């Protein structure tokens, strides 16, 4: 049923809630687990300035240690836990708007299932902070398993 499972992560506790579910499914089905960190270019531009977008455009990620550490740290957590359980892992870091990158990645790699955590925010907090999970749900037709943090 599931040969490739994608777990997007931003390294937050909420995202990691979903990891256990994804690992268990991958183990059960013998699936390959892809873990994806998306560097949000909107947040880069607001928190570091558009000059950093230029740096991304130039492909100078190598010198952006902080960003790189964050990204690789987040996928590494998933990868380490997966390898301990003998699951085949693919780690990936990309940049763009998270929900559209997740959607594209899933389609390009024939992913069968996306597993994501959700903050379960509501009201104003949801409107302000938005929900990558919600947008991904709306934009993709691949099955998505949402693990609510609450």
């Amino acid at each position, binding site marked *: 049923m599931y040969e490739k499972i994608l777990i997007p992560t931003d390294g937050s506790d909420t995202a990691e809630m979903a990891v256990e579910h994804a690992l268990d499914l991958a183990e059960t089905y013998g699936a390959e687990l892809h873990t994806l960190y998306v560097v949000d270019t909107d*947040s880069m531009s607001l928190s570091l300035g*558009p000059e950093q977008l230029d740096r991304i*455009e130039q492909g100078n990620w190598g010198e952006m240690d902080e960003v790189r550490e964050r990204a690789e740290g987040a996928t590494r957590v998933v990868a380490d836990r997966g390898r301990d359980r003998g699951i085949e892992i693919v780690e990936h870091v990309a940049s763009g708007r998270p929900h559209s990158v997740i959607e594209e990645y899933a389609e390009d790699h024939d992913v069968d299932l996306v597993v994501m955590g959700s903050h379960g925010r509501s009201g104003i907090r949801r409107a302000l902070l938005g929900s990558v999970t919600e947008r991904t749900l709306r934009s993709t037709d691949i099955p998505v398993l949402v693990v609510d943090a609450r």
Partner: protein
Amino acid sequence: MTVPTAVLQSGLLPEGLNVSFKLAPAIIVLGMLLLFLAIGFVFRVADTENMWVAGRSIGNVENGMAIGANWMSAASYLGMAALIALSGFYGLAFVVGWTTGYFILLIFMAAQLRRFGKYTAPDFVGDRFNSDGARAIAAITTFLIGFVYAIGQARGMGLVGLYIFGDIGLPGLSGYQSMVVFMMAITVGYLTISGMLGATKNMAVQYVILIVAFLIGLFLTGLSQGYSTVLPQLEYGMLISELGSEFSEPFVNQPYYIWIATCFSLVVGTCGLPHVLVRFYTVESERTARWSTVWGLFFICLLYWSAPAFAAFGTDLYGEQVGAVYAAEGGMTSAAGDVIVVLAAQLANLPQWLVGLVAAGGIAAAIATTAGLFIAGSSAISHDIYTNIINPEATQRQQVLVGRLSIIALGVITTLAALDPAAPIAALVSYAFSLAGAVLFPMFFLGMWWENTNRPGALAGMMTGLTIWTIPMINEVLPNYLGGVEGPFSAALATWVPAIGSALIAVPIVFAVTIVVSLVTEEPDVETKRIVRQCHSPEPMGQHRTAEDVVATDGGDAPADD
């Protein structure tokens, strides 16, 4: 409450300026902004699936133009000509100071900053002195600079906006104030949309449009009025003896001291302004950093060479058609001075769309610079204070939220402060230069060139700089916002430590404090020293490398102490 009383007082109105809604100029302004957005959109950072591949690199000329566009604000476009028109020779302190600053930047800082390889000014200060406290002070300074600098931009937009959109008459506000609110709303809106767009390509285009608008305005004004033919930048010299003693007899109306103080502040301020320095962090190599400074200087010179000519034409036309220019005979108000560039084009009877183009250029310059300043300010809050100090676990989306909130906060306080601005554009902007020069410049200069500068030294130095900057601000600028108080509080203080040039006093003191405190406290660790040495070592460094990489990979042998 003191603010509302101040608000009610201000009805800045440039006399002689045709205040009414004009369709063609309005279309030009909106068209320019849409064009900037469209270019930003076309060259935006695409979703990249694999980030480690190399993309395009930014060349010298393009980066030079970006430096020019980043730099050219309402202060250069409008304020410089305004000060020259109002005070003649004194205004040249701005031309001299702002260009000299780039030489210091070129010689002492551009390539070295590239070598250090951090993202922002607070990042540099925080990492070099290994201190969150220093980072926080630098971040707050960055935010303050954005705020003070933007007041001048808002004033420029409000005044020029009057020519284009007329008096839109928001309830309870004067025509000028309504226009400030309207323009700031457009700026924050533009920023929300443009924030995620790539910067460099867009800035290169902005530069070309602004300089074309300015030069065409100058040439046609000169040509149509018979002042000049092909080189108005030189030909305006023939007018000088007719313009009054402000032009022909330097230092008659303004003492030497204030000229030197202003000029010095502008020189060191240029080397400490976060939105200027940021252009050096991202270029591909130190060579590019150097050459883009040279190009940047050239592109800036095109404007600076022309501003005095524009001011001279404007002053002469004003004297003929509107009334006496100088204070002795009643004189031109600072509001009219601030739009002298637009006024000159209007009084020369150029077609309305052409005057509109000149005005639109001024507005575009102000909006683009304000956008850059607000992003630097919001990044100081969201990246340096929030993410690095308050909440290290912040997710990317929380950073976006904090960033947006700080932009809105900046927009609101800038608008409020600009409703009744204390001084002409160029003077308002100089306050920001004094701040950058007093606090950030010494940290960059000493941090980069003297390896023994340490954390206590930096902290003491920055606090001293902030204090010395604040005193004249309270003395001269604050009374303007307090109802019923005539400023300055102390005339002697205003003479010797003028707010417009307080860096002349502050910089030597900050240097001394930083050096003395660094000497009496513990030296920084060896690794920091080696990074500093690497930043100005004569050995060339490879592309895309930072001093930190070199120190981390070359093992124990330190480069020779120079």
